[in-house]
């Protein structure tokens, strides 16, 4: 897989998400499940950090995870 391919796939996804406006997603008052702690993308940041450190020390790859999005969507 080349870098160009990665960029292409990624741009498709980004464009897809941004343009899929009203078709994907929920209403603001329907986020009770998404608001739960266990439904956050990184529900245990400490554990994620510790594991990242182990795998960074033993393998050649690291990171990739992001931040932001999901949750209760309040305010």
């Amino acid at each position, binding site marked *: 897989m080349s870098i160009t391919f990665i960029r292409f796939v990624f741009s498709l996804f980004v464009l897809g998400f941004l343009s899929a406006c009203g078709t994907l997603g929920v*209403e*603001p*008052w*329907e*986020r*009770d499940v998404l*608001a*739960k702690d266990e439904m956050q993308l990184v529900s245990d940041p400490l554990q994620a950090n510790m594991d990242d450190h182990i795998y960074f020390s033993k393998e050649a790859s690291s990171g990739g995870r992001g931040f932001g999005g999901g949750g*209760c*969507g*309040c*305010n």
Partner: protein
Amino acid sequence: MSYSQFKHLIISACLVAFLCSSASASDEPGILDLSDAQGHVVVVDFWASWCVPCRRSIPWLNEMQEKYQDQGLIIIGVNEDTEEAEYVEFLKKFPAHFKMIRDAEGTLAREFDVVAMPTSYIIDRDGNVVTRHLGFKIRLMGDYEAVIRNVLSGSEAGTELVSAARPRQ
């Protein structure tokens, strides 16, 4: 939209909510017929127990209801929890001293086109929605209160202060 059209909208929305809420056997307060509210300033606040800023707004709404009751302020909380048990549990911990309506299906929220949690709509004495505020920020509590006072006194000053304030088209 004219005043009477709007009034009809609100009443029908409330009727729909009434029908939905009476379908589940619960003990929430009955439907509020807004034609009775003419001459009052009504704050309709959409909230849910899983929404952290909503929880922060409850004590403030209690304070507003008590403070401006005599000037004709009516606060109606519209709860969007799908789990009745969570709603009941929540109100035990954080009691609300204003009218509550259950909107578990989200029908009222849809009617009002709610785009954020929480959202408060302020309706003036003539039944017009004069403003809404999206979300609840502690640092804006003073501003929110100022708007309520203004609407109670009949002026529109500051209604654009808090959020996109346009009467519903």
